[in-house]
C-alpha cells in the first residue's frame, strides 16, 4: 500500500483550490497586466522544486508553481468577467512596472 499518490493528489486539490481566490484577488487589486509577473513567480517556484530533495515537499512546490502559471493565464479572462459584472470591478488598480511593454504582449489564454 502506497499512500503517497493519494495524499499528494488531495493536497493538489487544495493548492489548485487556492488558485481561485489568488486569481480573483490579484485581478481585483492589481489587474490582469500583472500576468507576466505571476507567470515568472510560478516558473521560479516550479524550477525551485528541482532543488528540494524531500519528495513530498518537492511535489507540492511543483504543484504550487504550475497553479500560479495557470493562474497567470486566467487573469485576462477574470478581468473580462469583472468587466461583465460577474465579479466586483475595482477601477483603482495598481499598475505594474513596464506596463506599456506588457500591454503590447498578448495575454495568454488556455
Amino acid at each position, binding site marked *: 500500500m502506497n499512500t503517497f*499518490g493519494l495524499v499528494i493528489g*488531495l493536497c493538489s486539490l487544495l493548492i489548485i483550490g*487556492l488558485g481561485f481566490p489568488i486569481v480573483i484577488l490579484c485581478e481585483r487589486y492589481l489587474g490582469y497586466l500583472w500576468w507576466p509577473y505571476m507567470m515568472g513567480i510560478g516558473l521560479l517556484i516550479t524550477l525551485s*522544486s*528541482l532543488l528540494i530533495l524531500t519528495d513530498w515537499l518537492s511535489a507540492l512546490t*511543483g504543484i504550487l*508553481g504550475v497553479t500560479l502559471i*495557470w493562474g497567470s493565464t486566467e487573469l485576462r479572462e477574470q478581468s473580462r468577467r469583472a*468587466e461583465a459584472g460577474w465579479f466586483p470591478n475595482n477601477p483603482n488598480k495598481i499598475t505594474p512596472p513596464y506596463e506599456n511593454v506588457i500591454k503590447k504582449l498578448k495575454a495568454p489564454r488556455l
Partner: protein
Amino acid sequence: MAINPLGLIAGATAFLGIWFGHVSVRRIEAQSTKLWHPMVIYLAAGLILELGAFFMSNKALSMVCGITGITLLWDVLEFKRQERRVQKGHAQPNPANPRHAVLLIEPGALATKDEDPSSQSRSTTSDSKIAQPVDGVQRP
C-alpha cells in the same frame, strides 16, 4: 548537485490535468444529451486511478495517478457547474443539444444564442469574447 524531478513531474501532471479538465468538461457538457453519462465515466476513471495510486509502489507513478485521479473527480462536479454557467448565461449554449435548446426557449431564460444587447453580461462590455464560454474549471 542532486536534482529531484518529482516536483516537476507533479507540476506537469497537475497542469495537464487542469488543462484537460478545463477543455473536456466544456466540450462534453455542450455535446452530451445526458450529463450523467460523462459524470459516471469520469467518476469511475478517477476512482480507478486513485485505487491504482494506492497499490503502485513507484512513487512517481503513484503520484501521477493520484493527481490525475483527483482532477477527474473534481471534473465530475465541474460538469454540473458548467451546466449552471450555461443556465445563467455565463457560457454559450449549444442549440443542437436538446438539453441546452430547452434553456433557449424558456421564458426569461438567461442563456442566449445570439448577441443580445439587453443581456446584462453583454451590455456592460463591448467585448464580444465575453459571450464565449469563458468560465471553466479549475481553472484556479
